[in-house]
């Protein structure tokens, strides 16, 4: 695996060297002209394509592609609590999330679609993210289920899930405080890179995942597990927030388009 080594000389000079995975030796994550492995610039997002209302049987559904990462989100609810009645909250709805990956989604076939530690952790993160955004106090004693499935994985899994789930929740008609937009950013050569792909994530970049409610600038989830110098943290968060605001514009466009199409079909 790659390592990020940062060393600091006295004063302001800092440099980092990045070693990439063995089979990609020699590939630079950020070239001198400022181009990344897939030809994007440092702050450029991948192409986002999305569609709402993919499945008729679910209460809300959405499909979102960000570059080569594809996710399908489905929302059921709000409905009566299933399973343990003891978890019912008298003043708000309970949000139940499940994150799973298709067995053919990764380059190496995954044996178990869900139930492993990473999927459980992701499910909890999604739950935390949406509890911050969904107006749960409008539906006491009920449950909202959000199921996200990754069909193809090429980096930024969490962010794509959150974006897809936002659209699905909107499609289900569940009120939210704001869109929830997420983006994974990394830090290479003193430059923040927005929207990492798998090659960059596994190349040892310190990556930070951020879920944002764009209008108020409120952060719903912030996660980073790599080494990063304290002074770079603010730049990285700023870059993540800008990227998320970019994503929110795209999601807004998708929602308006869908609304226009639906109202044309119903003859309004």
């Amino acid at each position, binding site marked *: 695996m790659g390592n990020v080594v940062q060393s600091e000389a006295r004063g302001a000079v800092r440099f980092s060297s990045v070693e990439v995975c063995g089979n990609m030796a020699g590939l630079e994550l950020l070239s001198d002209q400022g181009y990344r492995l897939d030809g994007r610039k440092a702050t450029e997002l991948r192409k986002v394509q999305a569609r709402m209302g993919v499945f008729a049987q679910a209460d809300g*559904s959405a499909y979102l592609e960000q570059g080569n990462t594809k996710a399908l989100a489905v929302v059921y609810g709000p409905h009566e609590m299933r399973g343990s009645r003891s978890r019912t909250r008298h003043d708000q709805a309970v949000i139940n999330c499940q994150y799973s990956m298709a067995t*053919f989604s990764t380059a190496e076939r995954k044996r178990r679609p869900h139930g492993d530690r990473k999927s459980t952790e992701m499910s909890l993160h999604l739950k935390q993210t949406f509890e911050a955004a969904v107006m749960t106090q409008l539906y006491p004693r009920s449950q909202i289920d959000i199921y996200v499935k990754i069909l193809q994985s090429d980096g930024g899994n969490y962010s794509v899930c959150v974006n897809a789930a936002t659209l699905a929740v909107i499609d289900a008609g569940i009120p939210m405080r704001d869109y929830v937009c997420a983006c994974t950013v990394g830090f290479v050569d003193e430059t923040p890179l927005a929207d990492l792909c798998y090659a960059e994530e596994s190349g040892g970049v310190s990556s930070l995942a951020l879920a944002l409610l764009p209008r108020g600038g409120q952060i719903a989830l912030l996660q980073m597990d790599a080494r990063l110098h304290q002074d770079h943290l603010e730049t990285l968060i700023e870059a993540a927030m800008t990227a998320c605001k970019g994503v929110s514009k795209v999601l807004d466009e998708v929602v308006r388009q869908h609304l226009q199409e639906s109202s044309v079909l119903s003859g309004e």
Partner: protein
Amino acid sequence: MATVQVSEAEKVYILHGIRDDLRVDGRGCEDYRHMEIETDVVSNTDGSAKVTLGHTAVLVGIKAEIGKPRPMVPKEGYLEFFVDCSANATPEFEGRGGEELGTELSNTLYKVFNNKKSVDLRSLCISAGEHCWVLYVDVLLLQCDGNLYDAISIAIKAALFNTKIPRVHISSDDEGGKEIELSDDPYDCMRLNVENVPCIVTLCKVGHRYVVDATLQEKACSVASLIISVTHKGTVTCMRKVGGGSLDPESVYEMTEAGKRVGKTLHAPLMKLLQEEESLGTKRQKVGFLG
């Protein structure tokens, strides 16, 4: 299967309709719902297909990996099936809820597809007794509205047609061991002959008549179903009765004949569609879920 509640009055209505060859959505007893098939939807698999049959949606991805052949048949490769009943289909499948159905489906798929009459397993052999191709067929159930077996079998046939297995050649290296080299050209690949791959037809007995392609509501009114896998020549390769009710032998013969008839007519349009899609090549606009 995802359950749907049907009242007694609804059951009687459906029964009477089927008795007169008129189902709730206007179909005849042997008509399929609107079917949409698309191949090559997931790019990091060796073959994939998405089938939508009414409200039932199934996605199949095939990955080819090199493995060791089974000891009893050293000159053949094999297929491995895994059916994932995802929570997307219904909240009942959350966590381990979908495992039971998934196991039942994959066991039937093994019986139907993993034999040398359906797929030419010899072509999957690389070197006898040591290396062979193993095709991992992963079925993802996205939406469930009855008739899962049919949709899954059509999707598997389409995905097998779409599968591109890279060509390998064996060379012996210095120590006398065998080395497998994949060819450098990404378009140099082997395709499978799917002519003999069967399609599954499910017939549900509702009242005194049987229906093909039952929705969940019709399934709730039926007591027993017959699953038949039929090849393009009309040969029955596998048969199974499912459900808690019992069938009398007359019905079984009738349903088998009907299944053969319906199954035979599935293959020709399917192959035609797949050939058309294939002939468009790279110019084809991939729609996937965005359409």
